[in-house]
């Protein structure tokens, strides 16, 4: 009984937030999505969304978000694991986050310089003997910079999950003759799955609506739903269409949450 009361108490600020800053904006977005560019009530935006242009864009957004998440995970997991083995692990972890506090636009400009034809990356390639090539405005540079931006968000929850692992569990597995790989697959990974899941959500969901980098690093070679929304709000001033795409993004997110929901609980 007391439990309920305290729960309701903690709930107050959070529920207020949900109502004011989540439900209200969703309502606004939904409302706008039913108006065409001239301000008449219509379903034209929804119709427009199902044209090849937007469907293709949706597909490519998902594809890039998937790649970004996967690559972030591939690099973040070992990094997080190795960080837990270092001496001043909390300090190193903080130092992973610090670069993300430098302004994003400036970092993007730096990457334009680094990946340019006469930039550092190409000098490096030439030194190794591969020879310089076009890096900027390719899928590679786009995904690289996107992973660069998102990776701290992936490392953090995985680090937290790994850090609390009881070393005796591992020792036990080793004593039982499990190989390193088996120990990882059967013991470590399942125990850190919540961290991995949370990391994937924190990366995949915003990666879907990525913009800016699509222009700065990919030179508009990559067009995502986020870019389209940005354009509709800020260039065409077609808030209706922008809102419609946002509605689909929100639906997509609900769907992802449904897929990754936790099924088992209460051991």
């Amino acid at each position: 009984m007391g439990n309920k009361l305290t729960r309701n108490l903690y709930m107050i600020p959070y529920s207020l937030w949900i109502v004011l800053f989540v439900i209200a904006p969703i309502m606004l977005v939904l409302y706008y999505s039913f108006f065409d560019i001239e301000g008449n009530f219509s379903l034209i935006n929804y119709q427009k969304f199902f044209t090849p242009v937007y469907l293709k864009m949706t597909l490519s957004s998902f594809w890039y978000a998937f790649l970004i998440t996967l690559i972030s995970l591939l690099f973040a997991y070992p990094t997080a694991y190795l960080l837990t083995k270092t001496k001043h692990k909390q300090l190193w972890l903080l130092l992973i986050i610090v670069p993300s506090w430098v302004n994003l636009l400036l970092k993007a400009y730096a990457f334009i310089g680094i990946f340019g034809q006469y930039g550092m990356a190409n000098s490096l390639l030439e030194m190794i003997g591969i020879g310089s090539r076009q890096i900027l405005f390719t899928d590679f540079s786009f995904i690289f910079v996107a992973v660069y931006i998102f990776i701290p968000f992936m490392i953090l929850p995985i680090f937290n999950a790994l850090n609390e692992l009881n070393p005796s569990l591992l020792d036990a597995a080793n004593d039982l003759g499990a190989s390193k790989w088996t120990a990882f697959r059967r013991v470590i990974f399942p125990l850190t799955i919540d961290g991995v899941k949370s990391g994937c959500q924190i990366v995949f969901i915003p990666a879907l609506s990525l913009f800016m980098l699509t222009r700065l690093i990919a030179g508009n070679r990559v067009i995502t739903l986020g870019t389209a929304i940005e354009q509709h709000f800020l260039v065409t001033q077609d808030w209706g269409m922008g809102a419609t795409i946002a509605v689909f993004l929100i639906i997509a997110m609900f769907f992802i949450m449904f897929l990754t929901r936790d099924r088992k609980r209460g051991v």
Partner: protein
Amino acid sequence: MHHKSTPTAKIFLFIIFAILYTPIFFLIFYSFNSGGTMSHFEGFTLDWYKELFHDTRLFIIVLNTLVIALLSSLIATIIGVFGALSIHAYKKRMKNTLLSLNNVLIVSPDVIIGASFLILFTFAGIKLGFYSVLLSHIAFSIPIVVLLVLPKLMEMSPSLVDAAKDLGASNWNVLTKVVLPYITPGIFAGFFMALTYSLDDFAVTFFVTGNGFSTLSVEIYSLARQGISLNINALSAVLFVVTILLVIVYYFITQRTNMKGVGIRK
């Protein structure tokens, strides 16, 4: 205790850190360029730094940015932790619904969040400026805190709480002596990521700010049309060095004080 890390492991970590810091060193390097752009390094100069220290307007903007980031992350962390606690206490279905709602702001592009917050604030008659920016930053940082705290709560075995209750601990004691210590790493992660969100945000702040209040991102983005001058690089360099120093000092202070507590929890 610690397994020794192998050389390959060390090289791997070194490369990760090198990549993370390369663009920042690139920016700092050009802050000493007398040439005026980030392309050709002509000669060494400290002019950009001198210019920077005479620019009081920019200095106020930096302070604004820091205050907003700190306060919004602190408040968002508190609300987010309570949010995570209450989501955790719910049954499965309700939990999933709440969590999906929680993520709406993460998936919504900044322009949409910004525009809808602007409509909201003007509708509610809130004067645009410090408070509207602070409120918005709190609002978009909460979901990230929840997402980082929740996995720690899920890991926590329910028997821990039950045991404490059996021993006669009050709810408050269960919270402060058992639950919060357990989820502390998640809370820290949430706080630092909220800081990141706040410091990086341009679009939302742009829409909800006004009456002379500005943050660094808004300033930098609006400089883009005329070309970003190198004193912004110099500014980033100064902020970066100060941040690194603060992080290190902070780390060793907390290390010291926690030593005194002697390892009940390591």
